[in-house]
């Protein structure tokens, strides 16, 4: 395959001064966001969507990818030193990493995590280079029925696999689909849910929805329950690893990506499941079973490597199929839409400079991140002292900038606030936010594919299952839907109060 030739061309794009600058900004912002509690990579990319109005796509995506990877690195720092994960992907890092830090081995834990992210990210991105063009080639003949099936899979997976309650996930998805309906019908120009308003006829901008749900909703929710006491981070020195630790960590580093990459690529919730699986695997394989729970370094090395590799898998699915499997990928997909670029199999043919420049920049970003995080981790930990009032005031500030920059309309600020209040309500009542965002972003596209597929088959529903691929996808969907019945479980739910 000429994938590696294309990758070399990509390095040509990624090594220009401007691309390097965006990569550096991305990884710096990403690490900061990863370290800071309350603000995750999805919110950060959403808040930065307005830069798409002024920046070329290559620079913007290089920066976004840097944020995604950087947040993985930074998230484990908070987990290890504070025992409160900065990101959901870093929950597992706290399980062994924090006991290590409390027993004076924080430096080793940070090093095991940082090198784990580096190894996992590198191997994951190499897998991406090797597999993505093949998948894109296979998918290049995809028609409307195939795309519609994939999108239905995304809808079902995001509501069923994630979260505690399927019914609440479904409610969230339908809210998103309803928001996506507002505006002119793409095929006939028919007004839908506009109530005669000219502003609503343009539809509700995806930027406003993403920023409202992720940023305003989160800031208001935290404001209502702001923790008055903040934990103090454990002070550590420069991360390093001795020979004995290296002997224990190199295998988990290499095993992590094998678990992380495939889970990142399928719609199964991003890094949470693979990091946990890696943790369990390493625990089973460990030669030091007595240390687990009290600070086993394998329990940091493996999961962190898996986390970064899952990010590569997520990017692979998004670039080749246009299918977002995590919140960050969903927001990046929204960014593609802002540029009028449709990610999917044809992306590799239509935008080779962008795709390969982006992939090449991932390698550069990883090197930058290792250099930034290994010696400077104690410095990053100081970010935790930022007053929470400023943090959440800043989130509201940048959310307002983002929504206003969409079109310079005051009404967008009001819509932003309303969607933010919806996001607040969803957090209070346990409705996951991600299905709504996926619904808004994929909904209009899914409708178009559905109508195209049915146009070809002249209205017959058999047009939706006219290809072997679509049939396979529907079988997978059926399995996901029936899974709880197969396991003889009632509707899963959590009880409170």
């Amino acid at each position: 395959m000429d994938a590696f030739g294309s990758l070399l061309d990509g390095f040509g794009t990624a090594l220009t001064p401007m691309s390097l600058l965006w990569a550096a900004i991305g990884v710096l912002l990403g690490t900061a966001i990863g370290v800071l509690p309350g603000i995750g990579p999805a919110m950060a990319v959403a808040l930065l969507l307005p830069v798409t109005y002024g920046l070329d796509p290559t620079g913007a995506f290089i920066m976004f990818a840097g944020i995604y990877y950087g947040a993985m690195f930074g998230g484990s720092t908070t987990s290890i030193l504070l025992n409160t994960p900065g990101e959901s992907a870093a929950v597992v890092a706290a399980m062994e990493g924090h006991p290590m830090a409390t027993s004076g081995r924080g430096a080793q834990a940070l090093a095991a995590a940082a090198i784990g992210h580096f190894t996992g990210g590198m191997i994951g991105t190499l897998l991406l280079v090797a597999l993505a063009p093949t998948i894109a080639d296979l998918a290049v003949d995809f028609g409307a029925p195939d795309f519609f099936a994939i999108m239905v899979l995304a809808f079902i997976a995001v509501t069923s696999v994630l979260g505690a309650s399927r019914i609440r996930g479904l409610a969230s998805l339908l809210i998103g689909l309803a928001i996506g309906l507002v505006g002119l019908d793409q095929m006939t120009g028919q007004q839908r849910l506009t109530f005669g308003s000219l502003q609503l006829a343009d539809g509700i901008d995806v930027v406003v929805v993403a920023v409202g749900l992720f940023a305003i909703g989160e800031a208001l929710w935290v404001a209502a329950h702001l923790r008055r006491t903040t934990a103090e981070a454990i002070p550590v020195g420069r991360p390093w690893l001795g020979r004995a630790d290296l002997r224990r960590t190199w295998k988990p580093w290499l095993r992590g990506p094998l678990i992380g990459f495939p889970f990142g690529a399928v719609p199964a919730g991003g890094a949470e499941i693979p990091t946990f699986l890696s943790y369990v695997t390493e625990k089973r394989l460990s030669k030091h079973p007595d240390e687990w729970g009290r600070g086993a370094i394998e329990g940091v090395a493996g999961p962190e490597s898996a986390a970064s590799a899952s990010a590569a898998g997520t990017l692979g699915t998004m670039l080749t199929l246009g299918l977002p499997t995590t919140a960050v990928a969903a927001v990046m997909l929204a960014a593609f839409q802002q540029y009028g670029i449709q990610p999917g199999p044809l992306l590799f043919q239509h935008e080779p400079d962008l795709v390969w420049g982006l992939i090449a920049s991932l390698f550069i970003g990883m090197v930058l991140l290792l250099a930034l995080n290994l010696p400077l981790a104690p410095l990053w930990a100081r970010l935790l002292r930022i007053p929470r009032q400023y943090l959440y005031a800043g989130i509201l500030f940048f959310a307002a900038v983002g929504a206003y920059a969409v079109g310079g309309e005051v009404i967008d600020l009001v819509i932003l606030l309303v969607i933010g209040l919806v996001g607040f309500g969803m957090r209070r009542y346990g409705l996951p936010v991600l299905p709504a965002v996926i619904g808004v972003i994929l909904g209009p596209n899914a409708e178009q594919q559905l109508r195209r597929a049915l146009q070809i088959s002249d209205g017959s529903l058999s047009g939706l299952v006219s290809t072997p691929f679509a049939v396979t996808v529907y079988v997978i969907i059926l399995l996901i839907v029936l899974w709880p019945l197969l396991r003889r479980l009632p509707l899963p739910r959590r009880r409170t109060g």
Partner: protein
Amino acid sequence: MSARLSRRDQRPARSSRDRRFTSELGVSAVLLAIGVLVLTDALTMDVEIAQRGPVGPRTVPIAVGAGLLAVAALLAVDVLRGGRGAAEEGEDVDLSEPADWRTVLMLVGVFLGTAVLIEPLGFPAAGALLFWGAAYALGSRRFDRDPLIAATLSLVTYVVFNNLLGVPLPGGPLMGAL
């Protein structure tokens, strides 16, 4: 809705279970309302305009609206059977304390104020007021530091967006004077 909940939250804790119960059913009601809205809009749609293909602009809205009604009903059943949505947790979130509605209302007020002021005052001034106001609502009382940070942040953001990225933001009288 927020004001109503605020008064409720200050009542003694003994009715906490009933309150939670009714407000959970409120989610169902909201879904029902959106569903009815989407369905009404779809059914009253005038589809004289050339419909291309067998599936017109009404089909998907009808499906979404019907789905919302079904989910509203299923959620109500789930709540009546004892199901509760788990409030989202987070690093800075302390769920053991009752919700602080005053702060939320103040933030909403500050945000709406910004929306009103952004055009007459311009972005740098309105943005600074937003940051300062939000920080104040969240409990920051550093009158020496807060306005300074707010002004700097707002001005730098304005310059970055307006001059570097080419995303126009209104400068207002302040930038006109400078």
